[in-house]
């Protein structure tokens, strides 16, 4: 009899109890499902027992805040909820954040610029979007912005204010071309390397921006730079040089020098057409020396108004700024691999001190442009938001035990 698969045959083969049993795949599916959920809950449970909320972090904290990583509530507070950000008061518990500008129409929340949970970033730098909240279309309480009203990127940043002005009123006479070109002097001969620390007062810009102590180039001084070539010789008979000071200080010094000289050398009285009495000899010599100082020596660098002679001459005040970028924080030490001329190209041909030799913003943009190969073109590369001149000291509130308990 041949085997024939009829419906009846097939039906008789079925074990009707099969639906009551769990077969391998459904059984293992259930086992693995329960196991998967249990493993996940166990993982979170272990952290919960240790009162450690690390698994829920939305990203690594900056190193300075890393010790807070296991206790969300330290920053987020207990009253956290949907759409709520970290309250400024939580930040202010440890940090002072001086105001930006009194004329600002609003003060953004700390976290709108200082975005945490992004790993090892410079949190103090803030983010451009925070600045652009206002500066992309600036409105102020006064109604008249003191800076450009529409800046949305470094590419659209206006020219530096100092550069935009055509002349610099230094009050000095100086010829860069003569020194650099004809005398082949190097920039560093006069402009001290940035490694020389600056007085602390110069570390704050007008806007309160902090810069490193090695950021600035020192201001050339007469004693430090000019003296070796430009000695303030009073007279061939005197070995002392005139002090580099105001005329009212120089005048009595010169008088005293000649008085001492003639007292020691009375034989010079009446010689070479000079008067025969000591007082008249001193007056004669002082007048000649001061005339030379006024017309040749001092005038090389300074301008005067002297309607009644040297003693009462008024020297035009000099004004070489310690910081040229008063609203930014340029750091020379960060650019020390570059030659001076690569940015200050016009220095070699400048003949008057009033020439503004700052590089224009276009020079900066050669490296500080948008893109992955950029040296950085964010606002915080040059600017600092808070006016740190108004910084209030923060008094510590914690002891080490309290802090270490946050991160057992």
């Amino acid at each position, binding site marked *: *009899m041949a085997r024939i698969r009829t419906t009846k*045959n*097939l039906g008789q083969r*079925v074990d009707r109890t099969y639906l009551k049993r769990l077969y391998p795949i459904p059984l293992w599916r259930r086992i*693995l499902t329960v196991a998967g959920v249990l493993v996940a809950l166990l993982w979170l449970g272990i952290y919960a027992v240790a009162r450690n909320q690390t*698994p*829920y972090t*939305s990203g690594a904290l900056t190193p300075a805040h890393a010790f807070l990583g296991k206790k969300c509530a330290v920053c987020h507070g207990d009253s956290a909820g949907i759409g709520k950000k970290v309250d400024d008061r939580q930040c202010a518990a440890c940090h002072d954040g001086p105001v930006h500008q009194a004329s600002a129409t609003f003060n953004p929340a700390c976290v709108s610029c200082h975005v945490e949970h*992004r790993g090892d970033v410079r949190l103090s730098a803030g983010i451009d979007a925070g600045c652009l*909240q206002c500066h992309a279309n600036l409105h102020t309480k006064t109604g008249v912005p003191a800076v450009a009203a529409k800046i949305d990127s470094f590419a659209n940043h206006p020219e530096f204010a100092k550069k935009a002005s055509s002349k610099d009123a230094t009050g000095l006479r100086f010829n860069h071309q003569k020194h650099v070109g004809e005398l082949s002097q190097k920039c560093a001969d006069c402009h001290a390397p940035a490694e020389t620390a600056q007085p602390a007062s110069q570390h704050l810009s007008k806007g309160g921006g902090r810069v490193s102590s090695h950021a600035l180039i020192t201001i050339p001084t007469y004693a430090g730079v000019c003296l070796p070539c430009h000695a303030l010789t009073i007279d061939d008979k005197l070995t002392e040089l005139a002090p580099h000071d105001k005329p009212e200080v120089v005048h009595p010094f010169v008088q005293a020098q000649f008085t001492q000289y003639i007292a020691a050398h009375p034989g010079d009285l009446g010689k070479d057409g000079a008067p025969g009495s000591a007082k008249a000899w001193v007056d004669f010599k002082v007048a000649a020396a001061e005339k030379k100082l006024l017309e040749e020596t001092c005038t090389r660098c300074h301008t005067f108004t002297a309607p009644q002679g040297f003693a009462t001459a008024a020297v035009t005040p000099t004004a070489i700024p310690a910081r040229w970028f008063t609203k930014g924080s340029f750091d020379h030490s960060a650019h020390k691999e570059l030659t001076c001329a690569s940015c200050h190209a016009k220095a070699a041909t400048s003949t008057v001190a009033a020439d503004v030799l700052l590089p224009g913003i276009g020079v900066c943009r050669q490296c500080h442009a948008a893109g992955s190969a950029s040296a950085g073109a964010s606002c915080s590369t040059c600017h600092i938001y808070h006016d740190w001149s108004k910084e209030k000291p923060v008094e510590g509130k914690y002891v080490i035990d309290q802090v270490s308990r946050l991160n057992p």
Partner: protein
Amino acid sequence: MRIDQSHRPWAVATVSILLVALLAYIPYQLFYPGGPAGNTWPGLCYGVLGYGMMLFAGLLGARKRVPLWRIGRAQVWMRGHLWLGALSLPILLLHAGFRARGPLTLVLAILLTVVVLSGITGALLQHFIPKRMTQVVHLETIYEQIPHVREMLFEEAGAIVDSLCAVPANLPAVASHSTPAAVAVAEDSPSDLTEVQRANLLHVYRSGMVPFLRDPEGNRSSPLSSRAKASAWFDALRRQSPPSVHEALSDLESIFEEERQLIIQRKLYLLLHGWLLVHVPLSVTLLVLGGIHAFVAIHY
């Protein structure tokens, strides 16, 4: 489920939602202070949308458990599961801003990726394998019945051999005949085999057929595991036997053909359903952890 023309509305809706989500993401990426993140309002919207899709996809399991619930057709649920489940991955990537910075969010991102990829793999398998099964497994049975059917095939083969070797009254039966087919065969037992042929058949049965019938998937080297070799094997048996037993030998041969098809069916079934061992447990874990993440993230 085959992915055919009937899926077009779902495909169009899925692509449209994805395009809208991507277009909305562009200004969000460019202009939102601090950039995209899960805790921003747009990020939360993406998160709620993505988790909603995951929940809908997960509810298919509940819908299957209670088939009598009249909440939409099962086919609609299945299509929604496929398309919205797949869409949840890009939507949740937009939610996270294409980053996973925390331990829980990293685990969620990995789980979601594995779940969606395993789901896509499963959908492709479900699309192609049933057709393949129909083509190569003509004697398909209910998968869970395969062990039971194999027992019955073993009995049936024993009954056939018994019927061929049953003339001498003192010869012990090779199998007990409990199944209807085996009883029928045993009762209809003419045999013209000589004693030598009977002994030979019994030897062949015990040494060749029984090991294969007992463990068909563990005897890959048996000639009976291949249709061509089995055919040659049975042809040789026929040549050594009188024509009157050829039909019984053909029945035996057909039993082995059914066994081989059950092997193929089992393999295809494991392929067709094995991915669920990854997809389902990880999906449930993902939903649980996703819920915890949502609660904690919204709280803080």
